[in-house]
């Protein structure tokens, strides 16, 4: 058994961040959080997470941009990207998958459902 799976949660809403951090810890993951795009880019480079939970609309660098960065980097491209966004248009979702995301979860979502999906994804 390797070390704990690393999950990075990125969202600019403090309550969502707080909730997901709690939830992921409780389910036995090694959790890191980022409040904005710049922090997120910083952390992915240094920590090489296995999964990145990614909000799209953020003040500085948006989620699509971060996903593009991850997928184009040699050492990061195995990280799984899960978008979670209030953008619900068909085109936005398609864009997310086209960029290489494993999942696109629309807000509001159920945390119970989400945990199930993450577990399946990592298994």
């Amino acid at each position: 058994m390797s070390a704990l799976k690393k999950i990075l949660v990125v969202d600019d809403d403090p309550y969502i961040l707080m909730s997901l951090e709690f939830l992921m810890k409780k389910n036995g993951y090694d959790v890191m959080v980022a409040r904005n795009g710049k922090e997120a880019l910083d952390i992915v480079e240094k920590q090489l997470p296995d999964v990145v939970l990614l909000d799209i609309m953020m003040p500085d660098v948006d989620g699509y941009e971060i996903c593009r960065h991850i997928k184009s980097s040699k050492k990061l491209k195995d990280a799984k990207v899960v978008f979670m966004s209030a953008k619900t248009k068909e085109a936005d979702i398609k864009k997310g998958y086209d960029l290489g995301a494993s999942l696109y979860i629309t807000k509001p979502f159920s945390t119970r459902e989400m945990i199930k999906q993450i577990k399946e994804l990592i298994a």
Partner: protein
Amino acid sequence: MSNITAILAALLYLAILFGVAYYAEYKLKKGKSIINNGYVYALSLGVYCTAWTYYGSVGQASTRGIEFLAVYIGPTIMAALFWPILRKIVRICKTQRINSIADLISIRYGKNFSLAVVVTVLCILGVIPYIALQLKAISGSMNILTGNTETLPGLSNILGDNTLYIAIALAFFIMLFGTRSIDASEKHEGLVAAIAFESIVKLVAFIAVGLFVTFGLFNGFSDIFSKAADDPTLSKLFQFSDTGSYSTWTGLILLSMLAIIFLPRQFHMGVVENVKEVHIKKAIWVLPLYLLLITFFVFPIAFGGKLLLGHTAINADTYVLALPMQHGAKWLGLITFIGGFSAATSMIIVETIAISTMMSNNIATPLLLASQKFKPKGDGQLTNPILNIRRFSIILIISLAFLYDKLVAQHFSLVSIGMVSFAAVAQFAPAVLGGIYWKQASQKGAMAGISIGFAIWFFTAVIPSLASAGIISMNTVDQGLFGISWLKPLSLFGMQGMDSITHCFFWSMIFNITAFAVVSLNSKKTGQEAYQAEIFVDIFRHSSTPDSNTIWKGTAYLPDLNSLLANFLGAERAEKIIATYARRHNISLETNKADPRLVAFAEKILGGVIGSASARIMVSSVSKEEELTVDEVLNILRESQQVLGANKELRKKSAELQKATAQLTDANKQLQDMDRNKDEFLYTVTHELRTPLTSIRAMAEIVHDNTDMDEDQREQFLSGIIKETERLSHLITQVLNLEKYESGKQLLNMTSVQMNGLINDAVRSIRPLANEKGIQTEIKIPDSMFLVQCDEALIMQVLTNLLSNAVKFAPQNGHVSVTLQSTYEELQVRVHDNGKGIEPGLHELIFDKFFQAKNQTLRKPEGSGLGLAICKKIILLHGGDIWVESEDGNGSTFIFTLPLS
């Protein structure tokens, strides 16, 4: 090349033209308009370049040098003025359903019948020779192509004359695509597409010849030009010659500036067929570019021709075609011929449609309607006769042109006829330009100006050419009219040193403008005239509501009006049009008497079908109109002015409206935008709701699923849920508020409010928030009290919103101030913070709904993104204004005003 090949090529080309026109109309039926495009519009203005450009400019360049450029420089200059001038004419013609220059002039000057006739006659006289010239170019070029000798003048061998068949085919084409619908003010989709296509054909063909001569017969530009420079007669062509040249340049440039708008074909393409005003913006640069491209190779071809064919008897006017033919490039010759053919046909087609519309609307139809006593039966019985009149006019014009070509035209050179045409239509310029910019311009003035200009044009331009052609004696030209020496047509009042066209232009314009101005200033106007003057000159003020201020007095009955329209449009369509109009303007159709607005509307609709003159006759046949006096008209207009003047608020609003109208030229697009905006607004609202919902749900689930979590954490999640719920309800309240302001449901509860106190209260309410960030607040209010009429609660809302924003954006330990100032007219409140400021590009945008959300770099988790949008609505409802002043790094100041009194 055989005669048959040439005529087959020409007919094949015409068939392609039919194809293009059909394709365009087919596309339109499928819902896609090809001509709804700025480039197509600009290309269709290329109808300016006729066979005269195509063949004649090389001829002119090889004898008179760079002077040929003058008639392209004029339009280039005018293109820069398209937006103020052409756009105004287009707007007028669209709102008034005007479809010819004769209509434009007659409607502006009180719907005067005789003016329309004079303008039409002048157009026919001025332009038919010009059409004939195009036919001449077609037959001439065909002869060169086939190696025939010149076609004999006269009618002796008419059946063996190719031009006859070409003319018949053209007449057929024009009837087919030019008389599609009875409403002449409707667009001719196929026609415009075909003309734009022709513009491309002639350009490509001419450039092909240019390339052939430059790189095929010579070794590039430097080769041609250095050889030309070595030849003393050719090198002279680069210089302005010394006799009368400056006056010629000025004259030609001015003439062609006017021609690009007032030639019937230009007016038709530029105004009547214009689909959208914004297309004019494209034409402003595309048309000059087109003219530049089509004149680019004129010198190389002219010099090439002189150098290679100068020793032969070949006329320089035909170098374009002769050069490839003489050097064995038969196929290129055929393409060149088609290019010239397209230049000629496009001109013939458009000019004929424009003039036939004028002829049938202003002369033939009124005669028809007057001859058989008209009784409205309401069965569409007049649709066919009127279409037939228009078709007959087309045949008549083409026949006249054909006969002119055969019997008269061989006496003139290509260029002189064209310029005589230019000078003829220039006579309309004072009446039209004066009519759209000068309210004093009167019917008598216009009539005087056009008539005297017309007479002098005839005397100084037509008489000499008739004389030199041997049709009349030279006595008048040599000795002056009645032997009076200062009445010589080529040196009027002893004026010498100008070429004949400039001379004609100079004197006709001087007299035209003087007569127009002097008579206008000294003549009385009818009510109708004063009204039209007002509408035309201030069209951008009136075009938003062109019918609501209709001035018409008299009695008419609805059934009569109905059957009158039905005669021309068919019963079903007539009824539909009237019903739609009535619904839009809240006019009751229950009464038997027709509303004046309906009468005026019916006249306008008919005007589009049969021209304004006939429409006026028709409407007066079913109504009893009382003539309005000038005083009555001015009173009506003044009354509306007073209502506007009395209320400053209204005036401001109307200025805003005007601005909005100018921007929203495209009604269709606007509707779509509105729809999209609504969708976008809804999407953004739901989007904004999703974020707090997400955190509430997540936190609630966590608290629910984790009964074992420690007290502190539980507390954290629960208070989070409460905060987010508050945010959610705040957002919903804001959205509902905004909706209330936007739909106009919010009524203002106006009271006298003491502004000083209100500001103090507002600052007090945000002080706790400011203290948290260590921010200093400062109030700068003069000692005197300020009372203002406003809704206290709403203005309080604006103040606290601006203040809390200021606190939010000021730095830690920063500083926020409120200033109150007043002028006699308004109160001004300024809320300043020393934050990092707002970049200028965003100053307008930040007042948009959800601006923050859409521009993520500015988004803050707190705030709904609706605060400033709501502030703006509230202030606008009060008749005030709100804006922001900010420089990067110097903080920002939000300012709103409230009107005093």
